[in-house]
């Protein structure tokens, strides 16, 4: 207790410091600035990942064409304008790595957890601003390391973003397994350090630093989502670190954790013996599966907030939303085997993983239905953030449904490593999560930069991106069902796949148009930082605490005392109110005094305990543990 008080005091002294350029914009310890650093780095990485995908899409659509500009751009990787097969694999790998880790994990979670956790909970900053700063700079270093691997002579890592050994463990296996792979592993190790530092901070802040009256059951759903995301990251990234450590030792020190009986270039078995490559897959997917929820859940949280605000209705089933997030988080740890149905897994074990996987459909469906019921008969305001949120719901449903197919072991054995998988995850976690991120950017841009984004450009951005995303990913389902495998450099060599050339061209054209639409976004984003219309205090008439802070960024967030919270975050369109929103921080003048001075953390009163015992004790206990009663 005493240390906490001391900490709070010393923290305050910092406010008197004058900020230099370096401490304000570079090595900033302010959570709002760190969030912008994460966002802008994420956007830059996202553009790199997008351009990479366009280049390999060109190859897939016109394999025999020569693109002169590719040679200008890539040099020896595209001699005579034709993409090199090894570099194609490298592009696919780095595209996946960038999008999964750098854009949708750090770019999404890093941005919005940093921005919103202190602002929506009523804290002056994160639990440890210094660790928060370190987290960004580890992420930055990691990004630079990964991008530099594209420029090494043997090319970047090219065994797919999952970097399965033995391909990734043996330098001789392919050019990309040389220095490029070493840099990939270094980048990921730095990334893990970054996300652990960040995750510790997020959890600690949510548990410990909520303002007066902000009990757990009054937290906005964004915070619940970031909280569970951080827990997933904290528990699963160390496992990836373990996997990476073994892989580094196998690659560079000659151990044999993953290697055994390998024949390379027709030469007899290598010295490595006794290892098990499937072990790597277990360790990797123990992270890998929670990772897809680390990507998706912040987007779901943002969507909850944006949909409720712009439908001017309380979110439908707040408690159900929280419990379904909790259910998804828990289940995500015990389903990793569904990525490994074809590793020779015991069929009984396969069935266990299959059933557990299919159970995830339940909390996911709860969320989808709650979004739809929140929208139902609301006073919908179709601003760009709302459109992107609705877009997320669309992708979440259309991509989620194919998850039910892929979760079935019997079907997965057929569909594994085909374009069906590509279609599935690009819709359900790629497009859905990026739409959540866009929704968040459009919604909280006024909070971040004090200015507004252009609405019309936002509409164009949404519609073009939405339509092209479906045009790109939907046809891939049919390719996958027909057996077209993923990660192939060129299909024209296989007679049967020639029928798909037109579809490949359609996908590539749609991808280029969709990529072009992102330029609208970039213009809208960067131009309006400087020239946008000045934002009002609460432009979306939202209930949550972040809109009570001044428009101009200040260190410590609130100039005076931190506001007290009086009610839940989603009290829109209350019949007894003139306005259709009722901010969390506004005391209720009409209500009797007792109501708004009620201490939420007081001991449970005995009357309530008796009521509980009459009802279902078990559920009441669970609810109390998580503060939902």
């Amino acid at each position, binding site marked *: *207790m*005493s*240390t*906490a*008080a*001391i*900490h*709070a005091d010393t923290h*305050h002294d910092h*406010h*008197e410091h004058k900020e230099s350029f370096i401490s304000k914009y570079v090595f900033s310890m302010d959570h709002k600035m760190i969030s912008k650093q994460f966002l802008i780095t994420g956007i830059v990485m996202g553009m790199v990942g997008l351009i990479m995908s366009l280049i390999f899409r060109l190859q897939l659509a016109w394999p025999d064409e020569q693109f002169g500009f590719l040679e200008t751009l890539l040099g020896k990787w595209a001699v005579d304008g034709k993409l090199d097969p090894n570099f194609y694999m490298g592009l696919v790998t780095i595209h996946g790595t960038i999008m999964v880790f750098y854009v949708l994990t750090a770019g999404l979670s890093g941005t919005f957890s940093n921005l919103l956790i202190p602002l929506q909970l009523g804290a*002056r900053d994160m*639990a*440890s601003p210094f*660790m928060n700063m370190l987290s960004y700079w580890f992420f930055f270093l990691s990004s630079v390391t990964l991008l530099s691997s594209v420029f090494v002579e043997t090319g970047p890592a090219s065994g797919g973003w999952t970097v399965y050994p033995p391909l990734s463990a043996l330098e001789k296996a392919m050019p990309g397994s040389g220095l490029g792979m070493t840099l990939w592993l270094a980048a990921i190790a730095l990334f893990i350090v970054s996300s*652990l530092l960040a*995750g*510790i*901070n997020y*959890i*600690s*802040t949510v*548990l*410990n*630093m909520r*303002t*007066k009256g902000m009990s757990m059951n009054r937290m906005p759903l964004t915070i619940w989502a970031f909280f569970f995301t951080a827990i997933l990251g*904290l*528990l*699963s*990234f*160390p*496992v990836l*670190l*373990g*996997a990476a*450590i*073994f892989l580094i*030792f196998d690659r560079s*020190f*000659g*151990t*044999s*954790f993953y290697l*055994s009986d390998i024949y390379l270039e027709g030469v007899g078995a290598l010295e490595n*013996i*006794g*290892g*098990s490559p*499937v*072990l790597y897959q*277990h*360790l990797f997917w*123990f992270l890998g599966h929670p990772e897809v929820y680390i990507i998706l859940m912040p987007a779901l949280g943002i969507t909850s907030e944006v949909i409720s605000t712009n439908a001017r209705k309380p979110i439908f089933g707040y408690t159900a939303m929280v419990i379904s997030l909790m259910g998804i988080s828990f289940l995500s740890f015990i389903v990793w085997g569904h990525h490994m149905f074809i590793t020779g897994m015991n069929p009984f074990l396969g069935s266990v993983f299959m059933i557990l996987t299919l159970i995830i459909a339940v909390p996911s469906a709860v969320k989808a239905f709650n979004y739809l019921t929140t929208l139902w008969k609301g006073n919908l305001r179709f601003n760009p953030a709302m459109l992107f949120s609705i877009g997320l719901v669309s992708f979440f449903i259309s991509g989620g449904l194919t998850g039910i197919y892929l979760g079935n072991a019997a079907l997965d054995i057929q569909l594994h490593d085909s374009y069906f998988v590509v279609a599935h995850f690009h819709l359900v976690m790629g497009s859905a999560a990026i739409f959540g991120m866009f929704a968040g950017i459009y919604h909280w841009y006024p909070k971040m930069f004090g200015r507004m984004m252009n609405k019309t450009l936002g509409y164009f951005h949404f519609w073009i991106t939405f339509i092209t995303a479906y045009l790109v990913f939907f046809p891939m389902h049919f390719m996958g069902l027909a057996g077209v495998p993923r990660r192939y450099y060129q299909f024209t060599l296989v007679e049967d796949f020639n029928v798909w050339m037109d579809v490949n061209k359609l996908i590539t054209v749609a991808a280029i148009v969709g990529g072009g639409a992102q330029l609208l976004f970039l213009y809208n984003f960067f131009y309006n930082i400087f020239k946008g219309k000045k934002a009002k205090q609460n432009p979306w008439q939202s209930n949550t605490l972040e809109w009570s802070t001044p428009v101009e960024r*200040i*260190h*410590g967030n609130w*100039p005076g*005392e*931190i506001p007290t919270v009086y009610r839940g975050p989603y009290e829109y369109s209350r019949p007894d109110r003139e306005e259709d929103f009722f901010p969390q921080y506004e005391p209720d003048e009409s209500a009797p005094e007792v109501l708004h001075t009620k201490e939420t953390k007081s001991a449970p009163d005995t009357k309530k305990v008796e009521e509980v015992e009459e009802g279902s004790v078990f559920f009441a206990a669970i609810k109390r543990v998580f503060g939902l009663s």
Partner: protein
Amino acid sequence: MVKSKKIKDPSYPVAPAKLNLWLFMLASSMLFAATVSAFVVHRPDAESRQAWTAFDLPIFFLYSTIIVIASSVTAYYAYKMAKNDELAHNKNLLLGTTILGIGFCISQFLGWQQMVRLDLTFVNARPEDISASYVWVITMLHFLHILGGIILLIATWVQSIRLNVHKKNMGLMTLTHTYWHFVGVLWIFLYLFFYFAQ
């Protein structure tokens, strides 16, 4: 700028640094859970290919265990003394814990030497020595954690010499105390695990 003098923010239920440390320990436990599980999962697979040997742990690892238990006891008393404002005892006990920590490191080194003498090297010369590679990786990961603990102990000891560790300033002492118990318990778990698994 905030006129901070006038505002009194409520203090937090738990000291942020303490909660952060607990979360770090949770993450770090997951790293060991992963590596130990890898050992457990790998073993039957390798055994079926006659690529696994069970071997007795070096005796020095047992000595390490005894040292780490002793150091936990001294760390506990150092904490207690600081709480009772007995600064001289606190200082000496912290020094004692640090010395025991260094003793633990030396004992680990001797243990590794013994493994090398038995040809149980990190890079397996024979296929069946993959089990030794695991022992090496896991004990070395633990060793890194111990090094962190020793740095914390020295930092606390220096603060103690400067009379900065007392009843009203227990922050760093609490962290060091908690972390040192964590690495100690972690080692005892790892030792017992390897003892019964081999």
